[in-house]
């Protein structure tokens, strides 16, 4: 049953990624097709998650691959808030290829099938995994917005003659939305970490590499907001900092999870 939803979701995300590539070359039909790909793909993935949730007694995304599946859904959900607007379509070029690859990776790791039983309670997993993943999804979107900011800023600096042909959000919108996304995501990460640390202390476990990297990620994103408010770090500098923060998200999500999930 889960497979029935996985393949349409993957194919539609893939179609969206290709469509956005076409949109970057020539705005129009391919962009609209890509947006529908995201919408329908998201519906297929939502159905996939619903099937997993009804089939499993507890929290079905407690494994690394399972959490990757949920993470992709959260990223695409966050993207859908703005991504359907015409000027924000190009943001999909940064989000959808990434989402398609991660969803394929989640399946390869067994994250779209039945989950093995977790030693942790459902409440803990919902709070810890759910909040951390929601925060990471927000950071991913903020990084995509920052990437689009840098691209658009470079076009303006280079005075590209085609700049008005390809609709893109203004620098002010991109910068403001990235900051607002981080304002929502950082408290979620803080709470998610707090729940995890409380459990760590209660079980007497040690801090592993992933916990340390997550703390570093929190520091970078907290600095992003602090420097923005106190030192006026907006625009290009803020965008570079967001990309640095996103690199840490990638490391935490993809490079270090083996020890933590074991």
């Amino acid at each position, binding site marked *: 049953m889960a497979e029935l939803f996985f393949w349409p979701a993957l194919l539609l995300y893939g179609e969206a990624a290709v469509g956005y590539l076409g949109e970057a070359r020539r705005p129009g039909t391919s962009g609209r097709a890509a947006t529908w790909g995201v919408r329908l793909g998201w519906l297929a993935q939502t159905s996939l998650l619903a099937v997993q949730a009804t089939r499993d007694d507890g929290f079905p995304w407690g494994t690394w691959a399972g959490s990757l599946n949920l993470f992709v859904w959260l990223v695409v959900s966050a993207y859908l808030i703005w991504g359907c607007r015409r000027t924000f379509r190009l943001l999909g070029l940064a989000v959808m290829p990434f989402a398609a690859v991660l969803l394929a990776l989640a399946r390869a790791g067994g994250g779209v099938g039945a989950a093995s039983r977790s030693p942790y309670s459902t409440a803990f997993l919902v709070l810890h995994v759910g909040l951390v993943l929601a925060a990471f999804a927000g950071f991913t979107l903020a990084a995509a917005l920052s990437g689009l900011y840098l691209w658009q800023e470079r076009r303006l600096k280079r005075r590209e*003659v085609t700049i*008005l042909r390809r609709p*893109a959000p203004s*620098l*002010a919108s991109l910068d403001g939305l990235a900051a607002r996304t981080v304002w929502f995501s950082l408290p979620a990460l803080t709470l998610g970490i707090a729940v995890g640390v409380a459990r760590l202390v209660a079980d007497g476990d040690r801090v592993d590499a992933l916990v340390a990297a997550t703390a570093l990620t929190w520091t970078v994103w907290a600095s992003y907001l602090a420097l923005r408010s106190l030192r*006026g770090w*907006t*625009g290009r*500098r803020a965008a570079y900092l967001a990309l640095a923060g996103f690199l840490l998200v990638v490391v935490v999500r993809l490079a270090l999870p083996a020890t933590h999930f074991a």
Partner: protein
Amino acid sequence: MRLVLVGTSHHHAPVELRERVALDREHAAALAARLAEGGCEAVCLSTCNRTELYVACADPEAAERTAVAALAELEPEVEKALYRLRDQAAGLHLFRVAAGLDSLVPGEGEILGQVRGAYEAGTTGPLLDRLFRQALHAGRKVRAQTAIAESPASVSSAAAALAEQVFGDLEGKSILLVGAGKISEQAARNLVTRQARIAFVANRTAGRAAGLAEKFGAEPLPLERIGEELAHADLVIASTGAPGFVLDAATVGEAVAHRRGRPLFLVDLAVPRDLDPAINDLDGCYLYDIDDLEAVVAETLVGRRREAEHAEAMVTAEAAKFHEWHASLDVVPAIASLRARAEEIREAELRKADALLGRLDESQRRAVESITAQIVNKLLHLPTVRMKQAAAAADGVVYAEAVRHLFGLGEDER
């Protein structure tokens, strides 16, 4: 009714000639009323790029002669530059005009309002009423479904569109005008229409700065104080006659340090340039000179022309719908006569059978009425459709005559 168009435009006449046949709304309305005398309809469309007379009349030759004479009255020389179109070609021309496809800048926005104004001031009847309403619909459709009107078509609107790429909404953004000449004022006005406000006017001559500043409720400044106020401005528009740079990168760099990351958009419309090109290298500063803006406009015009190709297909389809309707008018009298004749026969036959039908109760009589009416309708449906199709293909009159002959329509009156 036949449709006649007589007119001239920027394609056929220079501005010196066009301005002599240009009419204001009042005179255009009066001319339309004069041309419509004797049971005709008329609309006079007069803009800076064209003066066109649309006349719907039973006698197209006479209507054309009157329209040509009316324009020649205004300026005899214009006769050589006039075009004369009829029926389908005249209709298609108006559709193209309303969509902005016949304009100097494809897709320009003003023409749709001008066509609407001419229609409202005209003396219209069923034909021109439908023609203008459908042309306005086509114009709106082209603008809504293609990107023909999205990009700027002038240097000042390109500057405003680029500023929006930086700031998004320009509402409340402060403009510093450097130079109190016409060019910078025009560019600033475009930004003001987008809710930006002119905060400072700097000029070498204090009097001119004060004059322009008063007009916009801005603060006048001597050129030496530009650097101080840069920290408070969001947009700078420079157009002085100074031989060298009025603003260098070092001065702007100092101001940027006090802006807490707020971007600064600078437009240099002067030749020789007023603003040091190195300003563009500063973080958060975006500088466009006249060449950059002209290149953007040229590119957007290429884009408009590309969109115009899609728009042409849409306009042709919309004009074809009007033509079908117009052509069907030729066969409407024949269709009406045919239906009336059939109904007459049906009623006569029912009357003949009255003795027999009298034995039926009310519901049975109604059923017989309904069945005979349906038979007549079904028999006439296909000929009606075919006649309308033939009318659209220009054979309508032949078919109408054939129907009149075959069914003996109108013979009683002869």
